[in-house]
Each structure stands twice: as structure tokens, then as C-alpha cells.
């Protein structure tokens, strides 16, 4: 698998460019002595990165599972009357800035990791619901008609026809959602959620560049890694016949 991942045609160049930039920045940091400053926080980095990963993994994982489930439910015929209204509501909630969502969560649930995870979960959930719903609705009705006519039941139609054909759009939603999640996770520190935000915000307040970068660099790397991971998942898990990335 890893050899295959490296040869994925469209994903190679951007990561090479990023690698080059990272190398240049690294060299600059080392030359200016900042690298030594950053490495003083090694223990904090390890501890807070772990906390950060828990925030991202729990809120993101919960959002993928629940967002896909809600999106599927909204696309079912028996939900037709409410689906459009529900999607409108989802769009409205999406327009609330994430910082606002976290603040609202703090006022409801107090401070600590729980409101942070719930806030991140909500921020991540919405694009997943929307793309799952739109992806399923975009499956051509004649495919469903053919499936019914051949004797598939509703569950089989969903699993074998609708989901595979919506998967590319669903993955696009998940990728966007996870980018929001990873990008927002540092703010969780502001409501006591911990994570790498602690180094970033404290570093800014104290004007300690080393401390700030000790939080910012792992956060940036994490964002790139998560995007790479879901990009690869999209490339390899969506069947070739319905995957625009693999058709050319």
C-alpha cells in the first residue's frame, strides 16, 4: 500500500512542494537559534500533541459517524417533508463562526475538554451532513429504479448503489470538515480544552516566539497529515468507476 500511495498521480506534487518549504523554514529556524528555543518545550509538545490528537480524533470521529448517519436519514423518502428544512437549519448553524460555537458550548457545558469536543463535533458535523445528503440525492433516479426492478431491497440499494455512488461527494465533505476541525482545535484551549493551542496562545501573550512555534508547527503538520490521509482515503476507497480522480 505505501508504495502505491507514493505513486498516486495527483497528490505527489503539492506534498513535495510542502516538504521543500518545510525544509527551508527548518533551516531558517536552525540558523536563527529558534530551533533550540522550540526544542526546550519538547515535553510540553509531546503531552499537548497527544491531548490535541484526542480532541481531533474524538470530535472528528464522532462527527463522521453521526454526520453520515444523519445525512442518510435525511435523504430517505420518509424524511422528504422535513429534509430541506433541516438542511436550511444546518446551513444556518454552519454560518455561526466556530469561535462563537465554542463560546456557546462553554456557556452551556462549562469549561474543559467536553465542551471543546462538543463544539468541534458540531463544527465538523455540518459539512458532513450536507455532503452526505446532497451526494445521495444526486444519485440518478434511474439507478435506483434499475436496482428496485432487479429485486434489491431498500437496504441493499443504499449499501450497494446509493452510498458507493455518493461516496466521492461524501468524502469531499469529510475532508472539508476535518480541515475545519484541525484548524479550529487550537482554539479549544480558550475554553479549557487543552491541546497545542496552549503553547500558541501563551506564546503570543508572552511574546515568546519559540513557545508559539512549538505549538504552531505541530498544528500545521497535523493539518497537512490529516488532509493527506483523507485525500488518500478518497482516492483509494471510492470505486474507480465513480472516482473523477482516477478516471483520467
Amino acid at each position, binding site marked *: 500500500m505505501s508504495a502505491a500511495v507514493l505513486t498516486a498521480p495527483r497528490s505527489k506534487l503539492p506534498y513535495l512542494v510542502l516538504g521543500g518549504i518545510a525544509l527551508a523554514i527548518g533551516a531558517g529556524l536552525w540558523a536563527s537559534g529558534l530551533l533550540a528555543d522550540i526544542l526546550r518545550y519538547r515535553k510540553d509538545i509531546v503531552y499537548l500533541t497527544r491531548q490535541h490528537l484526542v480532541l481531533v480524533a474524538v470530535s472528528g470521529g464522532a462527527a463522521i459517524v453521526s454526520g453520515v448517519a444523519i445525512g442518510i436519514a435525511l435523504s430517505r423518502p420518509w424524511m422528504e417533508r422535513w429534509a430541506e428544512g433541516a438542511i436550511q437549519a444546518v446551513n444556518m448553524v454552519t454560518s455561526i463562526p466556530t469561535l462563537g460555537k465554542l463560546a456557546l458550548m462553554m456557556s452551556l457545558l462549562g469549561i474543559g475538554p467536553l465542551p471543546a469536543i462538543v463544539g468541534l463535533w458540531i463544527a465538523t458535523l455540518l459539512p458532513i451532513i450536507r455532503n452526505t445528503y446532497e451526494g445521495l440525492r444526486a444519485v440518478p433516479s434511474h439507478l435506483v429504479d434499475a436496482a428496485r*426492478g432487479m429485486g434489491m431491497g431498500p437496504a441493499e440499494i443504499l449499501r450497494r448503489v446509493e452510498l458507493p455512488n455518493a461516496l466521492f461527494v461524501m468524502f469531499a465533505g469529510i475532508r472539508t470538515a476535518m480541515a475545519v476541525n484541525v484548524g479550529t482545535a487550537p482554539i479549544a484551549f480558550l475554553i479549557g480544552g487543552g491541546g497545542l493551542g496552549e503553547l500558541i496562545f501563551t506564546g503570543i501573550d508572552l511574546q515568546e516566539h519559540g513557545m508559539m512555534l512549538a505549538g504552531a508547527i505541530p498544528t500545521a503538520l497535523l493539518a497537512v497529515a490529516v488532509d493527506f490521509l483523507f485525500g488518500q482515503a478518497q482516492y483509494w476507497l471510492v470505486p474507480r468507476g465513480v472516482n473523477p480522480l482516477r478516471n483520467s
Partner: protein
Amino acid sequence: MIRLDQLTKTYATPQGTMTAVDRVSFEVHEGETCVLLGPSGCGKTTTLRMINRLVAPTSGKVFIGGRDSDAVDPVELRRGIGYVIQQIGLFPNMTIAENIGVVPRLLGWPEARRRERADALLTLLALPPAQFAHRYPNELSGGQAQRVGVARALAVDPPVMLMDEPFAALDPVNREAIQDEFLRMQRKLRKTILFVSHDIDEAVKMADRIAIFNAGRLVQFAAPDEILAHPADAFVASFVGSDRTLKRLRLIRVRDVMTPMAGGDDAARGPTVSPDDDLRRVAALFLEHGVDDLRCVDAAGILVGRVTRAAVAARLGTEGRQ
């Protein structure tokens, strides 16, 4: 084999009750192809979809092989009936072999048997399995895709096939080719087929029986030649067109009107026809050469009979009359 008894479908609309299909009854025998023909909105597709219960009838019955289809679970019923639609509906997320294997898989066939069946059907439809089995539908041309659509419907060898304008989206050349291929296949397989079409030429070519619909009602149910010779009413007459006599020529073979002769007269010149040609060729030769009779020769070039203008006229004048 398939019997419709007073089959009716009505829809409640804001403007009141709309009758899509009005007390339609007819019977299609085993191994026959029946084309449901009519303008759009005439109820032919709704009738077809009531047979596999994609549309629930308001009243009336469908009997398949003598069994009341109400007594069968709709999902089970559909697995035993081949279904082909105009948009083909190949699943783009599956390979060609997987598409053909959909119903076998629903019925629990093991992988190896599904694979074998897909290969056999692709071969039957002149799509070499080595080349096509692992392609995806978006890598096929329209004609190839519709062949796979037919193969998929034949996967578990169902005795009954329902086809909803299966070839309507193809260009004329491809359509002719796939119709011919389908007719050849049907001569071997002898399926009971209900086939929806809005094209009189296709109906005349494919059908043993034609059911003509207008505004939800069955207005005529007869063999193609009978419909062309004796349209039941003004609607049917206008639907089949003023050139219906020309269309009939396709249905009659030279052997049906020729006077048999044995040997002799080998030296004669001029155009000849084969006993298996249809009368379109005969008529064309009459006009082209200004002659009133033609010699019929078999594949080996031996004279077997002659066909005259009078015999053709007599046939067109009498056939189909009760």
C-alpha cells in the same frame, strides 16, 4: 404465460382522479414477444411497471406462469424477472462483471459461478470477457452498455423479461444492429418478453403481438401484420402511419408468396431474390427494373420458384382478414 386481467391504475391529483391505465386485459404466450406501443403518456410504461410491481395496481390482477403475482413478495418476484430500462441503469461503481452478477449475488450464487455466468453472457453478446469483464460502465459506448444491460437482465436466465424502451437512446445504426442481435438471441432463448416502445417500426420488427395503447386503454391487440392490415380505429390507423402497406412488406417473406418451381431456365438473366428475403426487396426490384416477376434462387444459386406482382398483391389484400 403472462395474463393481465382488468389491470387498472389511478392516481389522485389535485384536479381529481387521473386514470393512467384503464382495465387492460391481454395474454402473452410463453416464448412470445409482445410490444406495448403508443404515444407518451398512454399508459404503456405504467402497465409494464405493474407487472413487476414497481407500480402497485389500483385494481386488477397479473398472472405470471399461472400464479397470481399478488401472492408473491415483490422483491422475490422482481429477482425472477429480467428488467431492462432505456437509461440502462448500469451501476457505475461496479465493473461490467459485477453489474451482470447483481441478481446472482442477491440469490446467493458463489463468486466463481457468478464469474462464469458473466463470461458466458458477455460472449453471447459479442463482448469478449477478457476485454470487458473488468471495465467500468463509463468506459463503454452506448451500444456496448445496452448489450451489458441486456446481459444483466438475462443473468439468472429468467423466463420473463420486461424491457422499457431499451434501445430508444441509441443512434439508428446501433439500434438496428442491437435489434437484429436481440432477435437472433431471442430465437434461441425463447423468453416471454414485454417490450415498451413508441416506435412502430421497432414494434413491427420485434413483436409477435402488438398491444396498442391510447389514453390508458388497450385499443388493439394483434399480430403486427393484422394491425397494419386492419387498424382497429382511426387512432391506430394514424399511429401506424399511411405507409402501413410498405411496413407490411417487411413482415412477409418471399417463400410465403412464391410459386415453387424446380430446376430449368438456368440461362435466364435479371435480378433474383432468396426465399428468405422479405417483400421490401421484391418491391424494390419490381420498381427498379420495371418487371412483374422475379426468379427465386436458393443459396446455391438453384432456381426454386418465382414471385409475381399479382401474388404479392393478393397476399397484401387478403392477409389478416378474419
